[in-house]
């Protein structure tokens, strides 16, 4: 199968979360979140209580996938930044390390210029964390492999129970 499953460990999750919070503060944004290219939410911070982040994550990935398709047709590799401007809120979407998508939602308390600047900085940091994560997974250092994997023990019964 292509690529490997995305795995997230405590250590990297904390680093990612800290970076998202820093970005949120420094860019004066409302919400910052990170999605993998398949639409799964990795982390979110900010005013997320009344926000359907799961759906936003899926639609963000759909959006990136669709624009990626358009890019290909034009002979571009990808469009690495998307920006949607609303009456009140704006969305800034960027691809990091070709694998994850960083989304910043902001209103008039911030500006596109500021968001772009801060996103650029965070992209480097986040890119580094994901490289570290990938290495860990490839080297099998994380808890996913070996005896303590929670999946090795899964039975048919466990799965049946899911459906009540």
């Amino acid at each position: 199968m292509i690529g490997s499953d995305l795995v997230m460990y405590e250590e990297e999750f904390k680093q990612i979360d800290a970076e998202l919070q820093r970005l949120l503060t420094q860019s004066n944004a409302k919400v910052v979140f990170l999605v993998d290219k398949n639409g799964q939410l990795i982390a979110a911070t900010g005013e997320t209580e009344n926000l359907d982040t799961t759906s936003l994550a899926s639609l963000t990935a759909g959006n990136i996938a669709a624009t990626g398709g358009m890019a290909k047709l034009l002979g571009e590799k990808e469009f690495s930044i998307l920006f949607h401007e609303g009456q009140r809120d704006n969305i800034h979407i960027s691809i990091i390390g070709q694998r994850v998508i960083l989304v910043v939602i902001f209103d008039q308390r911030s500006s596109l210029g500021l968001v772009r600047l801060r996103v650029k900085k965070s992209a480097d940091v986040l890119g580094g964390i994901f490289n570290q994560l990938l290495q860990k997974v490839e080297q099998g250092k994380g808890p996913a492999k070996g005896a303590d994997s929670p999946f090795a023990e899964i039975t048919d019964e466990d799965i049946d129970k899911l459906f009540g």
Partner: protein
Amino acid sequence: MSFINYSSREINCKIVYYGPGLCGKTTNLHYIYKKTNPDSKGKMISLATETERTLFFDFLPLALGEIRGFKTRFHLYTVPGQVFYDASRKLILKGVDGVVFVADSQVERMEANVESVENLRTNLTEQGYNLDAVPYVIQYNKRDLPNVVPVAEMRSSLNPRSVPDFEAIASDGTGVFDTLKAIAKLVIMELKKGQEGG
């Protein structure tokens, strides 16, 4: 491509409902949505045309419960069935963990079924997957209609690999959860395989 989060103890998997236009993919998701208790489902999102034809995808996030202390989430997607939406179908297959093929049992739709399976195979191959290896189940839908092809016949043209298959009437829910459960099981078992010794 599943997402295993050891930090928040969650597993996310992506399941795609595939099949020719109007075979009942969206209807499957609607039924699942209707029958799932409110705190285990997110909003169902349909990117559809004004006439309710799926334009890009339907999306339904389901939180099913826990396995060994891990919250298990399935993200269900449907593809648009019409031939001219092929570009969108390819995009939705990215990162898929399991596929449900919904076949339309009506005699006049058999050709469309066969074409759609071939299209699924091609599009999966393009993404680096192999239909013969990926977790896969088949649903023979619309069994309530008068002009249906016998199951044995559908099986022989659509299910040479003998993957789990189910008769269904998605519009009243018959077979819908059997199908979902079967694909969920295959996906989780695949996850287990991937984690063992890998």
